[in-house]
């Protein structure tokens, strides 16, 4: 199984969620993060003191899927989150040894 960590723009969340659901993915876990990268940040100004904020708000979607579905999911996320402008984000694929569903104790792909 694979854990896909998808860092995307905040307003892409809805689309990515739907794209993954379309592939039969039943669950995911989302968190608000701040991204630093090629995309430049913004300036803030408070009584003459200028701050450059390098971070831009991003959403990280973590989703664990079976090995067979992983590639498809990557493509789906990419399609849903792509605008072509700098700052679209990344997908990191990390190996997962085991998954447990807390409610039932099921493990492996059955637990996803």
């Amino acid at each position, binding site marked *: 199984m694979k854990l896909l960590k998808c860092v995307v723009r905040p307003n892409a969340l809805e689309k990515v969620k739907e794209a993954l659901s379309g592939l039969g993915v039943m669950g995911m876990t989302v968190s608000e993060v701040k991204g630093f990268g090629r995309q430049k940040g913004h300036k*803030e*100004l*408070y*009584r*003459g*003191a*200028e*701050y450059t*904020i390098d971070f831009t708000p991003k959403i990280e979607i973590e989703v664990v899927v079976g090995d067979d579905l992983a590639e498809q999911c990557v493509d789906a996320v990419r399609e849903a989150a792509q605008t072509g402008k700098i700052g679209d984000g990344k997908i990191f694929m990390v190996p997962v040894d085991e998954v447990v569903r807390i409610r039932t104790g099921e493990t492996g792909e059955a637990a996803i």
Partner: protein
Amino acid sequence: MRGLLAVWGSRLRLFLGLCFLVVPGAAGADELNAGDTAWMLTATALVLFMTLPGLALFYAGLVRAKNVLSVLMQCFVSACAMTIVWIGWGYSMAFDTTGMSEGTMNLNSFVGGLGKLFLSGVGADSMTGTIPETVFITFQMTFAIITPALIAGAFAERMKFSAMLLFSVMWSTIVYAPVCHMAWSGPGAFFWDLGVLDFAGGTVVHINAGVAALVAAIMIGKREGFGQVPLPPHSLTITVIGASMLWVGWFGFNAGSALAANGSAGMAMLVTQVATAMAALTWMAVEWMKHGKPSVLGIVTGAVAGLVAITPASGSVGPMGALAIGFVSGLCCFWGATTLKQKLGYDDSLDAFGVHGIGGIVGAILTGVFASESLGGLGLAKESIGAQLGAQLISVTFTIVYSGVLSFLILKVVDVLVGLRVNEDEESQGLDLALHSEQGYNMEL
């Protein structure tokens, strides 16, 4: 000059908002006016509202989230402690008129007697002019409350709570009460006899607090990270709420300083509104031109600058004078809170000096100009703009020196007694947890 004083004596009563009606003996003879009393009860509530929650929020929004409570706490404890100081000895030191006599300079030109310690002799039917003395006492108390609270902007995010409390009590006793006395206690008082115009406290409140703030900012040193990492306001929403409340409450401050519901109060309200709006728009325009965008913090700071600057003038100028004062104070305070501060490099965290100090000075001086009937004002207290400016400058300079030196000494004493500043760990953890074992926000569900 004595003769001249007599000539405009009766006018002066109007200009100075009847503040000197605390003449013993004569006072009791006045009859209670329910309308004046109604307005002064309200004005008192409005000025308290300026500190709690007005100023508290204005300041609290500007600090980081980890220090929000420490700022609220400082304003709140000011309101409490100054109440006790005021009824205990502050009111007596400010408004007891024992030993004063018009034109005579003596100790009592600088500080009141002790005849009213713990409000001795004040009853429900004691009068100050046309209002109960109890109302006058409480109204003036709200001024004594907000003044030390203003200073807290300078040392926010790093001063010990105990040090702040000690400082406030000492400062209001040794600095505030005497300056208040010199300006407002009537014939025989230092500024009064000079013919200084300070309707609602440009000198007494704002220059006084602003200079103390500057001294404190320099003595306590910069916040960790100042100039290196961003120390942005944690909630400008809260700051805007506070600024709005300051604006509304200031009607009590300025129009209340007429001590009556009359034409003087009405004009004070109108010019307050005009100067505030003008200063806010000026700040906005300057910022827009200089940085390409108008900011919320800018416009509200401009408004406060205008409120400060019109304070001494609010009983003496007309709407056009107010426009001018608003414009100039917007410019000068912008310069004070941005350029000047950066140049000199002190960390006046919330610009207590940049806004209240500078704004107070601008207002005090311009009062001497725009009070002139030739400029649409209600009349000078002295024979010419030049003479009036002279009086204004003396009071400004005196107050700067007096407040500066004594604030320095008091802070030295406090430093020896309890230490001024929290340690590094406490500062980085935030004063809320370190000093009060609380957190401002706890948004988990």
